[in-house]
């Protein structure tokens, strides 16, 4: 098998080869990245824990449930741990610095969310200090926060009566995987409660959500019904859902736009691939005379066939390599950007890489098979005459 010939052919029109490889690389990168984007939307659903249920107001995500519900929900059989989540709605420096701050019951946070791991700082300090908070690893990176720092936040949902900023002590940095994102801040609900009771801010004793960890072997459906029955006559009706179902509503919220985008992107990638195919077929046609001479020199039909096919595969493989390589190289940067814009969970999975590789092989085959077949059937005399 004359590999030197393939290399030489690719180099003869190096610019054309490079541009074709480049276009294929871009198309494969786009296919992979768009798949990852669409896939990321479901990450919160896929990562949901089977033993967690979410209790919210039946009316609205923005209507709070009274804190007095906590004791009653905790008593229901099958509820092992219960944690409050309350949106704090403050901002750092300017209102463009958007990230979520949650007032939670800090003593059970890691029990309910075992996927959260402390990567810096001290858990003891978090539990002991009243004003302590934990920040997500991406958030810490964005603002350069580290354990021991003081984080001033301007209250929006909870403006301070004195007009000043809330002061939080950064006790640690956590890393988690979805559904818990790495751009949130957690602190103790009691801190908010005490400030409210001391008249430092307008405060109503309530929270947006309760999340319960159910006991192993508990009948989740029964637990859900028992909770909702407690308050079916108000004053604040609850709606309890498994965590996966609760997270799914955010997927539907984004609507069909990402799917639409992915469809368009797929179509464009197809167009790019078609154009690259055309170039490859064109290149093959130019080769007619060379092939005729080779046949006259005694190269077999099989060699001619293999020569053309391998050349096509070489281009497709190089394109695939560039596409997958770009997708992997940009993965963390894109993930960080998306996550900062409320879309966490961008990830290139082995599945997507396999998909891109399969697409590259298919392109190599489709682009190579017709020229290869023609090359094998070529008669030396005709080829030389036609190419002259």
């Amino acid at each position: 098998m004359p590999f030197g010939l393939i290399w030489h052919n690719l180099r003869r029109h190096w610019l054309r080869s490079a541009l074709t490889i480049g276009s294929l690389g871009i198309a494969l990168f786009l296919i992979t990245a768009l798949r990852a984007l669409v896939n990321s939307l479901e990450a919160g659903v896929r990562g949901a824990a089977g033993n967690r249920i979410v209790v919210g107001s039946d009316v609205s995500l923005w209507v709070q449930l009274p804190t007095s519900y906590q004791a009653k929900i905790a008593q229901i059989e099958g509820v092992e741990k219960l944690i409050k989540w309350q949106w704090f709605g403050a901002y750092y420096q300017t209102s463009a610095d958007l990230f979520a701050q949650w007032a939670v019951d800090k003593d059970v946070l890691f029990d309910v969310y075992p996927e959260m791991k402390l990567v810096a700082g001290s858990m003891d300090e978090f539990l002991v200090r009243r004003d302590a908070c934990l920040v997500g690893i991406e958030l810490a990176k964005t603002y350069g926060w580290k354990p021991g720092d003081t984080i001033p936040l301007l209250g929006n949902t909870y403006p301070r009566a004195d007009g000043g900023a809330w002061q939080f002590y950064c006790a640690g940095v956590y890393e988690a995987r979805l559904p818990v994102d790495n751009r949130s801040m957690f602190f103790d609900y009691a801190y908010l409660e005490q400030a409210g009771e001391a008249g430092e801010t307008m405060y109503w004793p309530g929270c947006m959500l309760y999340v319960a960890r159910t006991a192993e072997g508990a009948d989740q459906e029964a637990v859900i019904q028992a909770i909702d029955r407690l308050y079916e006559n108000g004053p604040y009706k609850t709606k309890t859902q498994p965590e996966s179902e609760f997270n799914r509503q955010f997927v539907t919220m984004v609507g069909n736009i990402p799917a639409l985008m992915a469809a368009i992107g797929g179509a464009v990638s197809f167009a790019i691939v078609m154009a690259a195919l055309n170039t490859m077929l064109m290149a093959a046609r130019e080769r007619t005379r060379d092939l005729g001479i080779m046949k006259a020199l005694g190269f077999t039909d099989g060699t001619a066939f293999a020569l053309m096919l391998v050349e096509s595969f070489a281009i497709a493989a190089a394109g695939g390599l560039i596409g997958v390589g770009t997708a992997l190289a940009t993965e963390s940067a894109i993930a960080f950007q998306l996550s900062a814009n409320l879309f966490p969970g961008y990830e290139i999975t082995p599945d997507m890489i396999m998909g891109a590789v399969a697409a590259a092989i298919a392109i190599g085959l489709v682009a190579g098979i017709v020229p290869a077949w023609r090359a094998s059937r070529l008669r030396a005399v005709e080829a030389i005459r036609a190419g002259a």
Partner: protein
Amino acid sequence: MAVVPFEYNLRSLFVRRSSTLLTVIGIGATVAVLAGVLALQQGFARLFSETGRDDVAIFLRPGSSSEGESGFTREHAETLMKSTPEIARDEAGQPLASGELYVAVRLRKNDGGETNVPVRGVQDLSFAIRGEQFRIVEGARFKPGTDEVIVGKSLAMRIPHAQIGDVIVLNLTPFRVVGHFESDGPFTSEMWGDLDRMTEALQRDGCSRVIAKLVDGADVAELRERLENDKVSPAKVQTERQYLTAQTIALSAILITLGGFLGFVMGIAAVFTGINSMLSAISARTSEIGVLLSIGFRPWSIFVAFLLESVLLGLLGGVVGCLMALPLNGVRTGTTNFQTFTEVAFAFRITSDVLVPAVVFALVLGVLGGLWPAWRASRMRPTEALRRA
């Protein structure tokens, strides 16, 4: 100085039509994606900002950026309405102002999912302030003080039990749908009812915001400054147009970033395809270039001719792309307003703000695709070009 006739390039594009077609489709698809994303952004942004009025003021709690997070007590709202001299008054001397409650209510959608529907409790004067912008298209307005609601046209198509005579339960209170309304702007995705009944049913107190018609020539900037530092009843004041424009910033930024990213990446591929197409066109015409050069055309005329040919490819691609995007115009879709996390229905809009950047983008792709091949063509030596053929 001799210029290569334009017809030469036109014919050349026709002769290699399959390669021309693929290049045009490549550029066209790229342009279409860009135009599609921009049309989405335009539809969304214009829905909000075009319909906002300059003579209507929105009062929010200081520090809040949307009515979803804003809130006033009833007394606070009353004080604002009664003691702001910039607020216009009706014949009876009543200030043309209204407290409004805004809650994103969880309701089921027709397709089975759940969505956050903006439910608005309004006072009587809300209608007077909106005037012609607000129209009942079917049924009638709700009667003040009753458990009746009216539903926006766009919303009525998206959720069940929203037809006239149906009953929608909010928290524990059943509300009867008595009318459908249409309005310029995002209200048509909302459900409206009586302020007092809504606050009671949804267990809220006070209201989210105050809206008011301003007297002619009111100085909004001065009003904003005065109320921001007011000791008794502070508020953040914006005109409705300013408020609605601010609502679109987050989603617009996401869409423009996404469109820009896709356009950039696909644009590179389109330029590659363009260069390849031009290069093969030039190599097939080496002898012609030799002839052109030897009969006295200057290299720069060759350069201009081939660059023009590539720009023409770009222009064709741009036109094809815009044509591909055109059917999107008016297609209705829904997305979330990330400022309030509620669903808004709107339509793609192909405007000049979509078409002009799309065509300019296509021309840029054409220029980028043609520069290098055209330069190569202009650098050929006549003797060699003729011999190589």
